[in-house]
């Protein structure tokens, strides 16, 4: 086990940031913590990177206890906090060599680890980090976190606020790092990124809703979700919400995701109902369930 978390709780004053969270991350795995802001992702990261002490529970990282062996952990992990923590007034090259020095290494020594990522930002190596675009800052921050060849990599919302292209590139890089045997714990508010992890924990308001592989979570989900579309989306949402047996109605891209309470849902009946309400160009089909659907269902059930 690369990371073991057992019943970790942390509260600020009277508010629980995380409550009795447990999970394991296997060696060489990409493990995703998926949840919105305020779910407790950052608190959990800080506990595991030895920056915060939990109120209850125990955790180990790379075999070391987060409280007793915090010094050993600090030597063997790479950490990229929420806001890309770079020195804005230092150049790309200066940032890298600074982080290399404080970890007691040099750029040359571990060049092979960061090479693939570094070549993309190398043309800008004399530019100040503050003048880089979001995607490039993200790459530089990743290089800085990797410079000492960590065994475990902690990435706290590395793709937040970054455009889809950079996000995709970033995940490709993570896959390649994984092949080098680095264990990666990554958090994200983007549910569509869940599918890119080996295993995920869905978290909301400090509690874990589910832990499994993305495929298992989807295949074990017992409800059927339908894609519904008509010409007038706004009206469609209103009308679906008034349909007697509706369980949930959520806008999803160009379709509305509709879920029914009953097991014997008949799409013809729904179509007739929508026709009655003057909808045109009606389209109803079984949808491909996504992690986001399940997350929304679980959070509603949890409340």
């Amino acid at each position: 086990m690369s990371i073991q978390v057992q019943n970790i709780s942390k509260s600020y004053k009277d508010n629980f940031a995380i409550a009795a969270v447990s999970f394991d991350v296997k060696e060489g795995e990409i493990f995703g913590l998926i949840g919105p802001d305020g779910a407790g992702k950052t608190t959990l990261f800080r506990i595991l990177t030895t920056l915060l002490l939990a109120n209850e529970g125990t955790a180990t990282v790379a075999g070391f206890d987060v409280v007793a062996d915090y010094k050993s952990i600090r030597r063997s992990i790479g950490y990229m906090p929420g806001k890309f923590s770079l020195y804005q007034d230092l150049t790309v090259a200066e940032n890298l060599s600074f982080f290399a020095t404080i970890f007691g290494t040099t750029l040359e020594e571990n060049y092979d680890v960061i090479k693939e990522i570094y070549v993309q930002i190398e043309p800008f190596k004399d530019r100040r980090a503050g003048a880089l675009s979001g995607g490039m800052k993200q790459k530089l921050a990743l290089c800085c976190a990797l410079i000492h060849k960590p065994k475990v990599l902690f990435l706290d919302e590395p793709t937040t606020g970054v455009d889809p292209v950079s996000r995709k590139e970033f995940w490709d890089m993570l896959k390649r790092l994984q092949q080098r045997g680095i264990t990666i714990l990554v958090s994200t508010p983007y549910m569509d990124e869940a599918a890119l992890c080996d295993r995920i924990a869905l978290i909301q308001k400090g509690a874990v809703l589910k832990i499994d592989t993305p495929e298992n979570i989807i295949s074990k989900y017992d409800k059927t979700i339908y894609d519904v579309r008509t010409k007038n989306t706004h009206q469609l949402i209103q009308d679906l919400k008034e349909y007697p047996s509706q369980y949930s109605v959520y806008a999803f891209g160009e379709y509305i995701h509709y879920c029914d309470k009953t097991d014997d849902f008949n799409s013809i009946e729904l179509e007739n109902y929508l026709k009655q309400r003057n909808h045109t160009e009606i389209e109803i089909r079984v949808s491909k369930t996504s992690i986001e659907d399940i997350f929304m269902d679980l959070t509603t059930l949890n409340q």
Partner: protein
Amino acid sequence: MSQEKIIEVKNLSKKFGSFTAVDNISFDVYKGEIFGFLGANGAGKTTAMKMLIGISRPTSGEVTVAGYDVKTAAEMVKKSIGYMSQRFSMYDDLTIKENITFFGGIYGLSRNKIKEKTAQLVSELGLEDAVDKLVGDLPLGWKQKLSFSVALLHEPKIVFLDEPTGGVDPITRRQFWEMIYAEAHKGTTIFVTTHYMDEAEYCDRVSIMVEGHIEALDTPKNLKQQFNVESMNDVFLKLARNVE
């Protein structure tokens, strides 16, 4: 949706020294439309948006918003628009009521109007019991919805939303979009930027900026057809890749 143009942009450019952030873009937004304004980081989205809301002067080109020229009548433009950004929403150390009163005040709403609006807004959002709570104590999702309502306080013709749903949980995000739909239904024009590609699908029309240019502008459906892909995310990836 009507064919009445509410935003007209002609050959708009913005240069910072030798760097051209926005390079000769032209587009129109129609009344009551939900217009998605997408682009990669650093593509010039924010710069373009700042020019539309009259807080940054174009280097060249023409912009008319709600019938006013942003160069000569920036103050009138500001009166006709609402603005909500992810970063600045509201004062955390004021209560909901105080925030509404303050923002109503800066848009010159009368005391009675503010009272009436407060009551309406609070009941719509189901916040009756929370009016005297500090905004800082509200969950993020509520704050977001509240600041959207506050941006609409002075009944603007156009609302500019700059990544309004960043980090919000998926259910609240949907509720937020339902509010947007409802508002557009009343005839308010919505101009929105987002990083969630599924949200791009909710828009009537979408423009995608790449390196200062508008590379694509159409309904999500047409764009997907044009690029022969399944989702807006793929449209986006294809476009950005073509440029590289």
